[in-house]
Structures are given as structure tokens and as C-alpha cells.
């Protein structure tokens, strides 16, 4: 390369070097992002793991930097274990509800929306996905408040006693929707729904129309076609979406703090332990729980071929 045309300076000579050693340029390009992610992100994850194996001195409240499994054992104490069970239950419920609500939107967008409508559906899902998380949560604070629009609407149509009856259900009910598990659940579904719709729609778009026609030709009704043809083919997309809804619910602490009862979720436990309580080791151990759950979840999802749809 160097001999092909006369050298005009450093830039040309470097070009020659890059040309003869293409790997050098690749290495130079990848080095800064790799260093950043390696040091800042992987380094921090390592710090998290390290902290979780430390413990806190019960009398002085000082972190003891010695390897121990004591902190993880504390997770099994009933009060802490309850937090984990509560969070996982909520994540599972939110995921199932997201699948049910997302399906009509994803199916309609994939099968029937064309041209302008297709774009509208895409924007209709993407804008809520990207718009401010906190603003969305705040909007639900307004909606679910005791004096808010839901109570007003329920009383307006004469269903005030129905709302009262729902809130009177033990455990999931409460003083108002914004201080009950029902409220927390609704907001979780609302906020993570777009994460379910997009991969589901991508999977449904790959289902060939001819298969549905073949199913109808063979005498299957709508429900049978849905159960035996559409659902199995859409499953990788559903699992891909559930990875998001499940993992995001596991780690969230803003939503249950703003809308919900005073009982903790994993995220809230992490936040309060590292802050006011100053127990960073236990906070770190709590933060490792969603990682472990998600690793198991991902391993299962990979087996079911969910990653082809991401």
C-alpha cells in the first residue's frame, strides 16, 4: 500500500499500517469502550459481589472487610425472605398480565395494521416506552388517589361499592388504590407493557400467513388456531418480553415506594439498607438476588429459543 502512491504525511502512513495490520485498527477502536465498560461496569459489579461477602459489625455498625457468608445467611431470615417472595410473586403476576394485555396490540399490529396505521401503532408503543418513567408513575399517583379520577368515575356510574369491595379484599386491598398492592400491580403493568409488546410483535410478524390459512382449511376455528399454531410460534417473543417485565419488576423500587403499601420489595430493601441503615453488605447481598434469579430465568429462556427474537 505504501508503495502504491507517494506518502503525504502521518495520516497516510497510519493508513498503511492499518491496512497491513487490520487487527490493530480494530483493537484501537474497541479499546476505549471496552476499557470503560470493563473498569466502570464490570469493576462495579465485582465491587458489589465483594461487598456482599463482607459483613457489618452489629455493635459499631462498621463494615468488616473479611470474607463471610453471614450476610447471605441473613437473607434467609423470615423478614428478609418475605421481601424476596413478595417481589418474585409480583414479578410473575405482572408478567402474566402484560402478556394478556400486550397480545391484542401486538397481534393487531403484526397482522392487520398496514402503511400509515402500522407507523401509528409503532409510535403508539414506542412513545410510552421512551417517555419519562417518573412522569408515568406520577400520572398513576393522580389516577389512583382516593379523591382521584377512578373513585370519581366509579361513583359516577354507581359502582362505588364495587370499588369499596375490591379494596376490602385482605392483603391486596388497602385504604385506597394508591396504597394497595392492586395499585402497585397496575402501575407495573402499565410501565413495562411496551417491553412486552415489541418482541411479541416481532415474533408474530414472522408467523407466515399461509400457516393460519392452512389451519383454517383443516377445519380449525379461531380459538384452536390460536392455541395450536399462533401461541407456540409466538412463544419465543413472549419469553423475550417476559425477561424484561420480570427483571424490571424485580429491581424496581420507585413504583412500590410511590404507589403501594408500606411493605418492602427487594429494590426498596436495597435502597434503604445502603442509605439510612448504612448496611452496604446486606444491600449488596439483596441486589445479588435479582441477578441470580435472572440468570436462572435466562438459562431457561435460552433453552426455549427466546434469544432469536430479541
Amino acid at each position: 500500500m505504501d508503495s502504491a502512491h507517494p506518502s503525504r504525511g502521518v495520516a497516510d502512513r497510519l493508513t498503511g499500517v492499518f491496512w497491513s495490520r487490520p487487527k490493530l485498527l480494530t483493537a484501537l477502536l474497541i479499546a476505549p469502550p471496552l476499557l470503560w465498560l470493563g473498569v466502570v461496569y464490570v469493576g462495579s459489579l465485582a465491587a458489589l459481589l465483594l461487598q456482599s461477602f463482607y459483613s457489618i459489625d452489629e455493635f459499631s455498625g462498621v463494615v468488616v472487610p473479611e470474607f463471610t457468608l453471614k450476610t447471605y445467611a441473613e437473607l434467609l431470615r423470615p423478614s428478609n425472605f418475605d421481601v424476596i417472595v413478595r417481589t418474585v410473586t409480583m414479578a410473575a403476576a405482572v408478567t402474566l398480565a402484560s402478556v394478556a394485555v400486550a397480545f391484542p396490540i401486538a397481534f393487531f399490529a403484526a397482522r392487520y395494521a398496514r402503511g400509515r396505521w402500522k407507523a401509528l401503532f409503532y409510535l403508539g408503543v414506542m412513545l410510552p416506552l421512551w417517555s419519562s418513567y417518573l412522569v408515568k408513575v406520577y400520572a398513576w399517583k393522580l389516577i389512583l388517589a382516593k379523591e382521584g379520577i377512578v373513585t370519581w368515575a366509579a361513583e359516577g356510574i354507581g359502582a362505588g361499592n364495587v370499588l369499596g369491595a375490591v379494596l376490602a379484599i385482605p392483603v391486596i386491598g388497602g385504604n385506597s388504590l394508591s396504597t394497595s398492592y392492586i395499585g402497585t400491580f397496575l402501575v407495573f403493568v402499565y410501565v413495562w407493557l411496551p417491553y412486552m409488546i415489541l418482541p411479541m410483535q416481532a415474533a408474530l410478524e414472522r408467523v407466515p400467513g399461509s400457516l393460519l390459512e392452512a389451519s383454517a382449511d383443516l377445519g380449525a376455528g379461531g380459538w384452536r388456531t390460536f392455541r395450536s399454531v399462533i401461541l407456540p410460534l409466538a412463544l419465543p417473543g413472549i419469553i423475550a418480553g417476559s425477561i424484561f417485565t420480570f427483571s424490571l419488576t424485580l429491581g424496581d423500587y420507585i413504583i412500590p415506594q410511590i404507589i403501594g403499601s408500606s411493605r418492602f420489595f427487594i429494590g426498596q430493601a436495597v435502597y434503604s439498607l445502603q442509605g439510612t441503615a448504612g448496611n452496604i453488605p446486606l444491600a449488596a447481598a439483596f441486589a445479588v438476588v435479582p441477578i441470580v434469579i435472572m440468570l436462572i430465568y435466562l438459562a431457561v429462556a435460552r433453552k426455549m429459543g427466546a434469544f432469536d427474537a430479541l
Partner: protein
Amino acid sequence: MHSEARPPLALTLGAVLGLLFLHLPILLIFLYAFTTEDRSYQFPPPDLTTKWFGVAWNRADIWPPLYLSLRVAAISSGLALVLGTLCAAAMARARFFGRDTISLLVVLPIALPGIITGMSLRSAFAIADIPFSTWTIVLGHATFCVVIVYNNAVARFRRLGASMLEASADLGANSFQTFRHVILPNLGSALLAGGMLAFALSFDEVIVTTFTAGQQSTLPIWMLNELVRPRQRPVTNVVAIVVFSATFLPILAAYYLTRSGEETAGGGK
């Protein structure tokens, strides 16, 4: 292929209701910014007024968080632009050892819940004794913004292909001239879209930030405090409208910038 088929009524109804469910709640934020009631979330609002916009403008405690958020978002999206583009360029060039690991590493900060990124950084700051500052916030934000720029850039690199770069070299351009005159103009709108999405994401982020900010307040943290201990509730609505616009407009712009390509911005957050 299915344009002639009519969707079942139940499906149409489900899809329309689902979309309304996604969009109607946000509108209430706008309505409540005009209510005269500032002690509860009473619906319907007893009366309407525009005075809260003036009140918000004159509240001294809103401006410093706004500046901090703008500064953090600008620095973080700038860093993410450089790191994300470099990473996409390297990945587009060759298949090399550890390629899959790197693409996983780029996605991980956004795939794992924010609390893990936040708590990890918090642990690292505690171990290394790093005091909280604007830069500790930027460290977190830039990390999860890289993937946004990367996703946009890597799709464009794929479309660009190798032939154009070879043609440029054949015509005697060196690597830097090729970058300046061929790669950059082709990448331009994808980078702009990625940069704006990264800006929106950083401006609005609250979970990681609460772990990396210490006593500092970004605008979302200010909002969070108002949510927990409300005073002058409609003022919070005015700020919510500002935050909403600061994220909504870049997203819309990013969509129009990249919609001609097969990979549209924002497909994966």
C-alpha cells in the same frame, strides 16, 4: 398478504383499549397542571388557572436541579456517542475473539435492573472512597447510554457495507479522509438519533442516579422528593410537563431521522 382480511371485533377492541391504556394517563399530568386545588389530587379539578407556570418559574429550588440534569445529560450522551460509535465501528469491521462477550457487555447495563447498576457503583464508590460529584452521576449514565448509540450506529454500519469504504480507499483517501468524508456523513443521522435518545434517557433517569448522586438533586430526583413529600402539587405537574417534553421531543425527532432505514431508532430500550 392479509390486507383483505378483516380483524375480529374483539381483537380490534382489545388493541384500541390497550393503546388508550398506554396513552390516556399521561394526559392527566397536563390537566392537573391547571387545577386550582394544590393540596389533593381532587378530580374533577374545582377550577382552572395558569398561575402555576409562573409560580414554578419563580421557584428557586427548581433551577439548580434542572441545570444539573442538563449538564449530566449533555456530558453523558457526548461520552456515549464517542464510546458507542467506536464500539460499533470495531464490531462492524471484523469477527474477532470475544465478539459476543462484548455485545453482551454493552447490553448488560440496560438489561439488568437499574438498581443493580446503581448498587454496584455505590459499592465501588464505597470501596474506592470516591466522593459523590457530578462525575459519579455521569459514570453511571454514560455506561447505560452507550448501548443506545451503539444500537443505532451498528445498524447503519451494517447498511453501509464494506464496498463504499473500499471504493474510498481505491480513490486514494486515507483512513481519516474516509472517516471524515464517507463514514461520518453516512452515519450522521443515526448518530444524531442515538445521541438524542441517550440524552432523553439520561435526563429522565432516576433509579441509578439516586445511588450515585449523594446529596445532589437532578430534576427527576427533585420530582421524586416532591412525590414523597408534596407541597404545591400543581408545580410538580408543571415540572413533569417539562421533563415529559424533554424526553418526548428527542424521541419523536429520532424516529423521523431513522424511519427510512430498516432499523428504526428506539426499537429496543
